[in-house]
């Protein structure tokens, strides 16, 4: 009886944490994607939006502390690098390079929650 209760408890913990992880990643990366898309739109129009990018970088630095528990640390490092690079390009008015870097980042952000979602492809 005791082991069955522990078993059900652990099973519930795994399922609940998986569900919450999915929700958390979806919401955070959704927000990230939305804001990044706006910055890309402005960068494509050759408008300096480094302040928004800096703000997003600040937000990301706060979020990534928790994100380390769910996402492999190398991928978080990649996001950091791409954001800093894009910021530098915008400050130097290299909008084409900044846009390319931000689009690469957007692609990574879109793929991250998908890579950890429950799907046939991810299982195999």
């Amino acid at each position, binding site marked *: 009886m005791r*082991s069955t209760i*522990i*078993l059900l408890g*652990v099973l519930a*913990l795994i399922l609940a944490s998986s569900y919450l992880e999915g929700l958390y990643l979806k919401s955070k990366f959704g927000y990230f994607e939305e804001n990044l898309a706006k910055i890309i739109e402005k960068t494509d129009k050759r408008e300096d939006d480094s302040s928004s990018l800096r703000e997003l970088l600040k937000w990301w630095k706060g979020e990534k502390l928790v994100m380390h*528990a*769910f*996402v492999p*640390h190398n991928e978080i490092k990649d996001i950091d690098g791409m954001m800093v690079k894009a910021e530098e390009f915008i400050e130097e008015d290299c909008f084409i390079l900044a846009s390319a870097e931000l689009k690469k980042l957007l692609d990574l952000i879109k793929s991250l929650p998908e890579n950890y979602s429950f799907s046939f492809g991810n299982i195999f």
Partner: protein
Amino acid sequence: MLLIFIRTTIIFAILFLIIRLMGKRQIGEMQPFEFVITLLIAELACIPMADLSTPIGFGIIAILTLFVLHQVLTIGEKSCVFIGRLISSKPSIIIDSNGINYKELKHLNISLNELQENLRIAGYCNFDEIEYALLETNGKFSFLKKQPSEGEKKPPKTPLPVCIVEEGKYKEWELNKLGLDKDYFEKLFKENGAKSLKEVEVATIDSNGKVYFQKKNSKYKVIETGYTGRRPW
């Protein structure tokens, strides 16, 4: 370095807890599925310990999943005889009163040398000193020695006990194999204080008809019945 120290401590604590929850059997006498789980756990524990880029949660969830699988298989093994046989197989009789069972030896991929080696480790030199040899489900050999008594040229038959009831359930396979009658045992259990089969924790019978009977939360009883079933042991 401090990171590795903390991560290793966390993984160790979780592994220790899981191994304790899996039971003492896990340490010394493993069933095949427990052996597989132990191998996997060892590997899974190493990855988040050494690789700092992997979230520690990945390793913990994998270890907890193995614990869940272990518990599910254990419950399945206990609750259903068929699943139990599927998961842990059954003990194999290698030597019986007729001698070495070569068919079973071949089936188990055991050579005669290996059998002799295990016989010697157990303290016997000759096959004729043994009444029964069994290969248990955990891969260990059990030997039952012949017991010669004074004044008798031929040693008496050593009784081989067989479990017929476990946790209030009949072991159908054993009953059918030996041609043992359920009605006989139900009557016997009632005479010895068990109102229903559910109250019987364990009951075994040997080839001399000696029944080891234990009611739930009670001291065991040994009953000499002389009953040996319809088929030869």
